[in-house]
């Protein structure tokens, strides 16, 4: 966080002269692309962890900055994109079962990391949040449960029922007492419409209403 403040200060000091003249003429698009440094900050991959090493030889103290060698990580196929999902070309290809992908965007207690930290675009952030919710409800993330306060005794033991592709939260849903006739049936919703454009391998269509 301190590094980002430093970078922001450097950017403003360098481009302060340019901004004064052209600030009034800039369009909305240019204002959005005004901060290249902050977005490039997430794209830099070869930046290793730096240490400050202090050595004392008699009366002289040597303060050295060393860069730790990080092992080279595989390059994404589309390195110039903004969103990490578009960088790896995973746009419509992930589901609630891809826990290895989803676990990179969640905290240890199961909550989502903010968009400004992960660098996801708005639509993909929403889709990942929906998939994480469905994965939690399916029980695929057992180690990411929120920590209960000490001495907390649950009043009623909840029935352990297996479920998957649950769109709504369990306590918020009411039973469908009158389902209606065949031509106007009150269908049960499965999955989520945000994942409607997912790639379907095989001839089966994705049914969102059962």
């Amino acid at each position: 966080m301190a590094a980002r403040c430093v970078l922001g200060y450097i950017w403003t000091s360098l481009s302060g002269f340019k901004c004064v003249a052209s600030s009034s003429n800039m369009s909305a698009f240019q204002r959005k692309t005004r901060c290249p440094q902050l977005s490039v900050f997430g794209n830099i991959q070869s930046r290793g962890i730096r240490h400050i090493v202090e050595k004392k030889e008699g009366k002289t103290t040597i303060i050295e900055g060393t860069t730790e060698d990080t092992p080279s990580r595989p390059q994404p196929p589309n390195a110039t994109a903004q969103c990490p999902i578009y960088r790896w070309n995973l746009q419509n290809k992930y589901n609630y079962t891809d826990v290895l992908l989803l676990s990179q965007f969640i905290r240890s207690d199961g909550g989502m990391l903010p968009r400004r930290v992960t660098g996801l675009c708005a639509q993909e952030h929403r889709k990942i949040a929906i998939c994480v919710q469905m994965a939690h409800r399916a029980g695929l993330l057992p180690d990411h449960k929120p920590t209960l306060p000490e001495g907390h005794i649950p009043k009623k033991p909840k029935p352990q029922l297996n479920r998957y592709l649950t769109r709504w939260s369990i306590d918020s849903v009411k039973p469908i007492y009158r389902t209606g006739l065949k031509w106007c049936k009150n269908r049960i919703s499965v999955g989520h419409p945000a994942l409607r454009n997912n790639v379907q391998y095989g001839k089966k269509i994705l049914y969102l209403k059962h």
Partner: protein
Amino acid sequence: MSSFTKSAQQWATFARSWYLIDARMQPPGKIATMCAIRLQGKHKPIYHALSDIGDHVVVMNTRHIAFSGNKWEQKIYSSHTQYPGGFKQVTATQLHLKDPKAIVKLAVYGMLPRNLSRRTMMQRLHLFPEDDLPEDILLNLTEELPQPREIPRRLNEYSQEEREAFPTLWTP
């Protein structure tokens, strides 16, 4: 097969087999379609509705079935006792807690043809809530059918090598 004797071929064609299905983490509807096909005998080329060539089907782990969506809360099973004020509506959760075999039983019952042989076919369906089957049924089983739904793996079921092989999408 052509190498069998005539009596062996006759026995192989008309014998009543016993199938086993594990319903753990499976949707009950898909389990029920597999059961209904085999109880009617529609998986055999010698099928005829009046021939009574259905097989026995044993379903185990019916307590651990998985519904998609919010069906545990939204799906309703209704019944009427024929007395006035005897209309009862129960959610899938309540029915499952009361009787773990009922959901699969009702699903299969609704998928069989609505004729007199439906009751005999239901007698050939054997449901067990857990995986402990009685010995006489275990001795009769011939084939286990593959599960319709692929069970997704939990995060702790992935090995450390698989987690390291998966690329990290973003750096903090």
